[in-house]
């Protein structure tokens, strides 16, 4: 027994030397809070999968810091005058990770797979503008591409691919970027069921890194692709470690176990900025959080009530105090960094007196318990939200308190994600606090959230405004950015008049990394910073 104890002690002493880091500098360890689901850009839908896919797969084009499109796998492209035909010339001598050559057939295969109704993919709606979209994606008797008179995607030759649109969509180029439009290899996936293919666990892409190992729930390891068409990345290896506890994640960063984390607790950021061997990168994001409700449920049907709720909540204070300024007050569907953003649209100011006045106008009187009531019904409703998202939880708690101060009673109902999403899309809720990931191009989300035809989809709040419908449709049908901007400005104005949500904030993306790594380009769209992993290098400082 004594021997055992001595042995334990001895072993412990052996180990008690300060932690050494990995092959210093050439490896880059990223700390993630959750694991990816599948590494196939056609079907993957969660944020962690997107992050993991980015280094493995290339898309036709990529973004720069101004959210403009730049060549990647496509060297150049031509758009016909009527905006209905896009012809891409692909880069030559691009190889897949298994050595086979990349051709236009892979591009066609990828996007036909996205359109294939048998493939469960969330990205289908982004390609709505393609010719034959309704026929190819029909629920009953969908057609095959060969059966169409005019095919949406045409392989002109090994290095030329042509897309045909049915209306001159201005957002077409924008949807061809990662993480949703990575190209997958035809020679591996043809004839397989993409939903369950082994490929999803052992992906082959054309990206700057290749997958070496994936230990589920533990880590992903990728190594540099020597054959990468834009030159071998400066880093040798990417190691993504999965650490579910966010505080432990931060401790790993501090102790050298990881080199990069995203979204640290905001109260720690000031301290992290002052830590000598760490640096903080901040950029805007397209995702926003909002407090919403069923538009077709009384009393939310009264615009005075909706505006009152908006006046009741002090969003600037929330942004400043709770989010430490790492967020931007939202005035609508578009972030300030978007070209569609209209600065003339102003949110309703925090004004509890006005809120009370509006509610009184709408016929509400304070009851005996302080809660407003009208026609015998108390103004009381439930706010449903994701129980796993700490910042959403915090926001919901704050909103509940602000509402209480104007006499509105809200019950918080945190639900686990599967249940919550189910209820959301079944429109089974009263109030909600949730966010939209959004896209850097205005169209995909603006249309699917606010158009009255989408009640079965993202418009689960059942919003309906014919003038908004018009503006959205007009914006969609033109390729001219100036025109689109006009329509979206109209849309944003109308939306704020209607006050269907209390638009809360666009949280910024905050990343913390070891100071010796350079080359990050924080692009203001979801996970944009991961696009620049191929350019990151260790400077040894």
């Amino acid at each position: 027994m004594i021997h055992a104890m001595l042995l334990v002690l001895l072993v412990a002493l052996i180990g008690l030397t300060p932690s050494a880091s990995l092959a210093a500098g050439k490896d880059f360890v990223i700390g993630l809070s959750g694991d990816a689901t599948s590494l196939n850009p056609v079907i993957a839908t969660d944020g962690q999968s997107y992050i993991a896919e980015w280094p493995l797969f290339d898309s036709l084009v990529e973004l720069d810091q101004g959210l403009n499109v730049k060549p990647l796998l496509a060297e150049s492209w031509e758009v016909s005058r009527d905006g209905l035909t896009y012809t891409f010339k692909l880069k030559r001598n691009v190889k897949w990770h298994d050595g086979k050559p990349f051709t236009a057939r892979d591009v066609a295969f990828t996007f036909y797979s996205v359109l294939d109704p048998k493939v469960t993919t969330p990205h289908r709606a982004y390609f709505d503008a393609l010719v034959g979209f309704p026929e190819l994606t029909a629920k009953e008797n969908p057609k095959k591409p060969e059966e169409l008179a005019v095919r949406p995607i045409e392989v002109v030759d090994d290095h030329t691919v042509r897309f045909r649109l049915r209306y001159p969509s201005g957002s077409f180029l924008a949807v061809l970027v990662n993480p949703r439009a990575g190209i997958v290899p035809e020679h591996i996936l043809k004839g397989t069921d993409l939903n369950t293919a082994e490929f999803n666990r052992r992906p082959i892409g054309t990206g700057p890194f290749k997958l070496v190992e994936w230990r589920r729930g533990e880590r992903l390891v990728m190594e540099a692709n020597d054959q990468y068409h834009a030159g071998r990345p400066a880093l040798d290896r990417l190691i993504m470690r999965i650490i579910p506890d966010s505080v432990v994640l931060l401790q790993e960063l501090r102790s050298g176990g990881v080199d990069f984390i995203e979204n640290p607790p905001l109260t720690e950021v000031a301290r992290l900025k002052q830590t000598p061997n760490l640096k903080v990168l901040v950029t805007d994001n397209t995702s926003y959080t909002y407090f919403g409700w069923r538009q077709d449920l009384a009393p939310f049907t009264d615009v005075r009530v909706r505006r009152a709720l908006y006046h009741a909540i002090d969003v600037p204070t929330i942004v400043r105090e709770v989010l430490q300024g790492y967020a931007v007050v939202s005035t609508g569907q578009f972030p300030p960094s978007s070209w569609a953003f209209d600065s003339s649209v102003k949110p309703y100011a925090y004004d509890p007196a006005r809120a009370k006045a509006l509610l009184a106008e709408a016929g509400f009187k304070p009851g005996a318990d302080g809660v407003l009531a009208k026609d015998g019904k108390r103004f009381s409703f439930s706010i449903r939200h994701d129980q796993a998202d700490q910042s959403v939880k915090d926001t919901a708690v704050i909103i509940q308190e602000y509402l209480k101060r104007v006499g509105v009673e809200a019950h918080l109902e945190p639900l686990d994600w599967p249940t919550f999403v189910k209820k959301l899309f079944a429109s089974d809720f009263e109030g909600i606090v949730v966010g939209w990931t959004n896209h850097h191009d205005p169209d995909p989300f603006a249309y699917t959230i606010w158009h009255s035809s989408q009640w079965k989809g993202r418009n689960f709040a059942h919003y309906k405004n014919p003038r908004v419908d018009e503006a959205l449709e007009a914006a969609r049908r033109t390729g001219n950015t100036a025109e689109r901007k006009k329509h979206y400005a109209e849309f944003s104005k109308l939306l704020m008049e209607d006050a269907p949500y209390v638009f809360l904030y666009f949280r910024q993306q905050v990343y913390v990394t070891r100071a010796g790594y350079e080359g990050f380009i924080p692009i203001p769209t979801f996970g944009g910073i991961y696009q620049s992993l191929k350019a990151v290098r260790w400077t040894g400082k």
Partner: protein
Amino acid sequence: MTAPVRSERPSIFDRFTRNRRGLVGGLVVAIMLTAGALAPALAPQSYSSQSLLNRLQPPSAAHWLGTDGFGRDVLSRVIWGSRVSLEIALFATALSLVVGTAVGSVAGYFGGGVDTAIMRAADVFLSVPALFLILIVVALFGASLANTALVIALVTWAPVGRIVRSECLSLRNRDFVHAAAALGAGHARILGRHLLVNALPIVIVQASLLLGQTILIESGLSYLGLGAQPPLPSWGNMVVEGRQFLASAWWIATFPGLAIFVTVLGFNLFGDGLRDASDPTLRGHSP
């Protein structure tokens, strides 16, 4: 244990009051229970009223234990937290005891096939990892007070049942039981009046230990996001919420953490003291 002859042996109560540990434990328990019961009156402020401009304030005259991430008063939340944490603990423990005692006594008293059948059923519950079963129910059906208490009871009744069963097994062949049966007492009467009364001390000891255990389980659930839900404060979820501020505002997580520790310690001390006191062959005083 037969009823003691008063003039010769000290009663349980007397022995207990001489047991210092048990007394200290009992005191702590009493304080916490009172705090919980009188929370609405004791707490200086509401547990949910926020003041975003007063976040993360250290302990001061206005807020004895400081304010948390929403500017809420930590002291009030700790006091209310005792109510929430103890509510769950009491419900779960009561349920667990009732089920455990009922099942265990029936198994022990009747013995034979009934005993085997019941014990096999209990084994089913014991072969699933406890926290896992709790997780499944709470994650899938919602983290409400009722669900949490129910499922905690589900995984903790078996040890209680086992103890009661062995007690009843050893007691059922004693003379006084035969005497009662001879006098015409039915099963229920014998069980209730004679066996259970004698098993009571053990059950109470178990109760005390179980209460402490439940509080720890609830805090574990809070760590996984499945404890009491905000804005309701439980010590568990306060500790978890306050963790991210440990470096800058240590009071937010430390005080509820301390509360958990002290309360569970109290329940354990109390249970230990009771067990020592109800032990018939102890002589002298225990340390």
